C-alpha cells in the first residue's frame, strides 16, 4: 500500500488537514499513529480506510478487505450484540464472528441491546466487526480506550497474529498499547505533516519497567535504557502495568525463572 503526496482538506478554501503525506506500507506492518488532538489522525485513518478521498495525491494498492474499529462505536441502533454481528457477518459474506466475540470476552453480553452496553463493551463490538472478515488492512482508532485489562492484554497479540498472516495494522493510539510488538513502526502527525520516527524500543531515553525477573535477552539495555524490577501483589499487576504504560514506560510482565 502506497501513499503518494496525499493531502486532504474538507472544503476548497480550508487549510490542509493532511499535507503531502508519503508512506509505504508492506504486508505485516504494524503502525502506531500518534499526534495531538486535532492533528488529523482520524482524518488520516478515514483516508487509509477509503472513507474519504484525498484532495490531492494517491493512495494505491489498498488491500481488498478492510476492517475499521472506530474510537466510539455507534450504539444508537435497535439491535442486540448478536443480531448486529449476524447482520454484519452476512454483509461480509457469512464471516465467522463468534470466535472473535469469545476471544474479546463478549460472551456474556451477546443478548444485550447495543444501547445498553458500556463504552468498553461497545468498543469490543466495534473490534469484532472489524476483525471478523480477516482484514488485509486493519485500522484501529484508539483501540485501547475503555477496554478491560484482559482485552488490553489480548489486543496486541491479535494485532501480531494478523500481521503474521500478512495484514497491515494501523492504530491511532495515545496509550502505546502496541509498543511491545517487535518492529512496530511509529508515525506522528504534526500540523498535518506525517513523520515516521524510530520505534520506541530503540529510543535511549525511555526507562523500562519489567515486573518479575529483571534482565532478559533482547531487552533494550544496549540502547542505554534501564530495566528495574518492581515487586507488588499479584492482584495489582494488571492495574500497575496499565498505569505505567499510560505514563509512557515500556512495562511488561515476565515469568519467574525459578
Amino acid at each position, binding site marked *: 500500500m502506497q501513499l503518494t503526496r496525499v493531502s486532504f482538506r474538507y472544503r476548497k478554501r480550508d487549510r490542509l488537514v493532511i499535507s503531502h503525506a508519503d508512506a509505504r506500507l508492506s504486508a505485516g506492518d504494524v503502525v502506531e499513529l500518534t499526534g495531538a488532538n486535532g492533528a488529523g489522525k482520524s482524518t488520516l485513518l*478515514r483516508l487509509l*480506510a*477509503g472513507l474519504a478521498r484525498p484532495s490531492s495525491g494517491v493512495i494505491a494498492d489498498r488491500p481488498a478487505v478492510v*476492517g475499521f474499529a472506530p474510537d466510539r*462505536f*455507534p450504539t444508537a441502533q435497535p*439491535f442486540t450484540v448478536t443480531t448486529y454481528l449476524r*447482520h454484519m457477518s452476512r*454483509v461480509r459474506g457469512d464471516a465467522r464472528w463468534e470466535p472473535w466475540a469469545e476471544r474479546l470476552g463478549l460472551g456474556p453480553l451477546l443478548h444485550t441491546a447495543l444501547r445498553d452496553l458500556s463504552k468498553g463493551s461497545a468498543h469490543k463490538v466495534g473490534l469484532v466487526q472489524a476483525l471478523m472478515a480477516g482484514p488485509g488492512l486493519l485500522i484501529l482508532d484508539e483501540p485501547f480506550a475503555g477496554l478491560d485489562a484482559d482485552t488490553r492484554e489480548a489486543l496486541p497479540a491479535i494485532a501480531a497474529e494478523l500481521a503474521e498472516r500478512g495484514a497491515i495494522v494501523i492504530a491511532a493510539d495515545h496509550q502505546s498499547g502496541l509498543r511491545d510488538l517487535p518492529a512496530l513502526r511509529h508515525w506522528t502527525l504534526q500540523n498535518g505533516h506525517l513523520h515516521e520516527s524510530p520505534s520506541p524500543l530503540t529510543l535511549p531515553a525511555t526507562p523500562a519497567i519489567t515486573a518479575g525477573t529483571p534482565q532478559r535477552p533482547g531487552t533494550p539495555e544496549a540502547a542505554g535504557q534501564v530495566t528495574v524490577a518492581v515487586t507488588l501483589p499479584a492482584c495489582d499487576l494488571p492495574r500497575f502495568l496499565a498505569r505505567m504504560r499510560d505514563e509512557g514506560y515500556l512495562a511488561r510482565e515476565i515469568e519467574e525463572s525459578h
Partner: protein
Amino acid sequence: MIALAAFRLAAYVRSHRVYQALLLALAMLAIVYGSRAPRGVETAVLADGAVLIVPILAWAARSLLDTEPDRQRELSAIQVGGRGREVAAGLLAAFAACAVLAALVLAWALLLGVSVSPPPAALAAAALLYVLAALAGTALGALTSRAVLPSPAVSIMALLLGFMAMLLVSASSLYWLTVPLLAWMKAANAGDLVERLPELAAISLAWCTAGLAAYVHLRRRA
C-alpha cells in the same frame, strides 16, 4: 449489498420508525377512501392515491436512510466494500420500503375505495403509477436525508417544498419539467391515462433517475 439493504430495513422496522409512515398512510387512506367511489371513476381514484402517497413515501425513504447513525454508515461502507455499494444498498432498502407502502395503498384502494375493479389495462396503468410514486418518493426522500441535508429543519422543509414544487409545476404546461404528478391525475380523470402513459411514465422515470443520480453524486462526493 442485499445483506446491507436487509440490515437497514431491519433497523427501520426494529426502531419503530416504520410506524410513522404507516400511520400517515393509514390516515390518508381513511380520508381519501372513506367511502367507495361511484362506478366509472375507478382509474381517477387510483391515480389520486398514487399522487397523495408520494410525500408519505418520501418521508419513509428519508426516515429509513436516517435510521442508521452516521458512524455506522461509515462502518457499513467499509463492510460492504465501498461507498458506492453502501449508497446503492440504502436506495434499494428505501425503494423496498416505499414499494411495500405503495402496494398497501393500492390494495386498500382496490378493496375499499372503488365499487368495481377497473379494466385490466387501466389497472395495469394505475399499478405503474404506484411504482413511479415509490421511485419518486425514494428520490425525494434520499435527497432530503441527513447525509445530504444535515439540518432536520432544512430537510423537512425541502421535502415539503419539493413535493409542492412538483405539484405546482406539473399543474402547468411545463409539466414535463418535473415528475408530472398532476398530469397523472388529469389524464386519469380525462380517461386517457392508458394512452398517455408512455409519455408520462418516460418523463416520470427520467426525473426520478435524475434525482437518484444527484443523490449518488452528492453521497460519493462527500
